[in-house]
C-alpha cells in the first residue's frame, strides 16, 4: 500500500503544472493573467473578456509581466499567443494585450481573424487614447479596462462569430464525457483498493492539473501594434 501511495504522490507531482512553457513563455490560466498585481485581480476585465467570448467566440486575453526579458516584447507577445493558442483553431480570432511594467512597454497581438476589423492603426489609436494616458499615471486598471471594453465592443459590433460548442461537460475539467467516465471509474477503483486514500490527492489532480486555460488553438500572424509609455 505504501508503494501505491508513493505512486499516487508521484502522479500528483507530474500533474502539477509548471509556471512556464518550455521556453519561458507564460501559460495563460484565465483571460487576465497579472504577474505584478497592478490589476488587483482584474475580475471585471475577466468578465468583459468572458462576455465577448460568449457572444462572439473571440478570445481576448490580458497579460501583465514585470519584464519580457530576455525576449523583446514582440517576440514575447507573439510566442505567448502562439503557445497558448488564443482564438479558435481555423478562425484565429484571438487578441492578446501584454504590458511589461519594468520596460514601460505595451503590445497588442491580433490574430488573423480579427485583423480585418482591428487593423494596427485602429488598435494603436485606441491604445494611445484609452490605455497609455491611464497607465502613464499608474492607473493600470482603468486603462486596461477601458481599452479592453472598447476593443470588445468593436468585436461584438463588427465581428460575426459565435463560441464553439463546449465539448467538456464540466467547464474547468478539460475532459470529454467518456474520458470523465473512465477517470471516474479509475478513481472509484483506486478508492476501493486504497480505502479512500486516493481522495487526498484529488485536489492536486484537479487544482493543479493541465496546462492553463483551454484556449481554442488559434494562431497569430504577427499582426498587432505596440509602444512605450512615459
Amino acid at each position: 500500500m505504501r508503494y501505491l501511495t508513493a505512486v499516487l504522490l508521484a502522479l500528483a507531482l507530474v500533474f502539477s503544472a509548471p509556471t512556464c512553457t518550455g521556453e519561458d513563455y507564460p501559460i495563460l490560466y484565465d483571460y487576465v493573467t497579472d504577474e505584478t498585481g497592478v490589476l488587483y485581480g482584474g475580475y471585471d476585465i475577466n468578465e468583459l473578456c468572458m462576455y465577448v467570448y460568449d457572444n462572439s467566440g473571440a478570445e481576448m486575453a490580458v497579460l501583465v509581466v514585470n519584464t519580457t526579458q530576455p525576449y523583446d516584447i514582440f517576440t514575447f507577445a507573439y510566442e505567448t499567443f502562439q503557445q497558448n493558442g488564443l482564438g479558435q483553431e481555423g478562425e484565429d480570432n484571438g487578441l492578446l494585450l501584454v504590458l511589461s511594467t519594468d520596460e514601460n512597454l505595451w503590445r497588442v497581438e491580433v490574430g488573423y481573424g480579427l485583423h480585418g476589423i482591428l487593423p494596427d492603426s485602429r488598435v494603436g489609436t485606441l491604445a494611445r487614447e484609452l490605455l497609455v494616458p491611464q497607465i502613464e499615471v499608474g492607473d493600470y486598471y482603468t486603462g486596461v479596462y477601458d481599452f479592453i471594453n472598447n476593443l470588445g465592443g468593436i468585436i461584438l459590433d463588427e465581428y460575426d462569430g459565435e463560441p464553439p460548442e463546449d465539448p467538456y461537460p464540466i467547464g474547468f475539467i478539460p475532459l470529454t464525457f467518456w474520458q470523465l467516465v473512465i477517470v471516474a471509474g479509475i478513481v472509484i477503483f483506486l478508492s476501493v483498493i486504497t480505502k479512500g486514500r486516493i481522495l487526498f490527492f484529488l485536489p492536486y489532480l484537479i487544482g493543479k492539473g493541465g496546462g492553463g486555460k483551454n484556449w481554442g488553438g488559434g494562431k497569430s500572424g504577427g499582426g498587432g501594434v505596440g509602444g512605450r509609455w512615459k
Partner: protein
Amino acid sequence: MEFTKGKLLAIIVVVIILISVLGFGIWWMLTYNKMVDENEAITSNWAEVTNQYQRKFDLIPQLMNLTDTYMSWEAGTLENITAMRTEWAEALANDDMNGMMNASNQFDVASDIIINAVQENYPNLDSDTILLGLMDNIAGTENTITVARMNYNEAVQVYNAHIKKFPAVWVANSGDFEEMPYYESPNAPAAP
C-alpha cells in the same frame, strides 16, 4: 492438388516479391504526396510574404507623401522606392523568387532609413494621429513580414531536409523536386 516443396518455395518467393513491390509502391506514393504537401506549404507561406511586401510597398510612399511638408527627402528617394517596387513587380510576374528576395532586401534597407528619419525628425509625430496610424500599419506589416519569412524558412527547412534524405532522395530526383532557397537577409529583424 499437392504442392511440391519446390513449388511451395517458389510461391512464397513470388508472394514476398509481390508484397515488397506493393509496399515499395505505397511508400513511393506516400513520400511523393508528402513532398507535394511540403512544397505547397512553401508556396502558401511565400504567398503571405509577397502579400505583406506588397502592402509595405504601398505604405512607404504614403508615409513619404504625408510627411513631405516637413521632411526634405533627398532627390530621387521616392524614385528609388518606385524603381524597387517595379523590380519587385517584375520578379513577381516572372515568378522569380531570387529576384523578389533581392528587391525586398534592398527595399527593407531603404524603408528603414525613411522610417527612422520620420521617427527622429518629424516635429509633430506624437500629435499627428493620421501619421501615427500609418506608422502603426507599417510596423505591423514589418512584424507580419518577420513572421511570414520565419514560417517560409521553416517550411523550406522541412522540405529541403526531406528531399535530401535517403531513400526519399530517389523520389525527389524522379519527381522534379528541387531544393528551395532560404529567405535570408542581413538586415532582417531577428525571427521570434
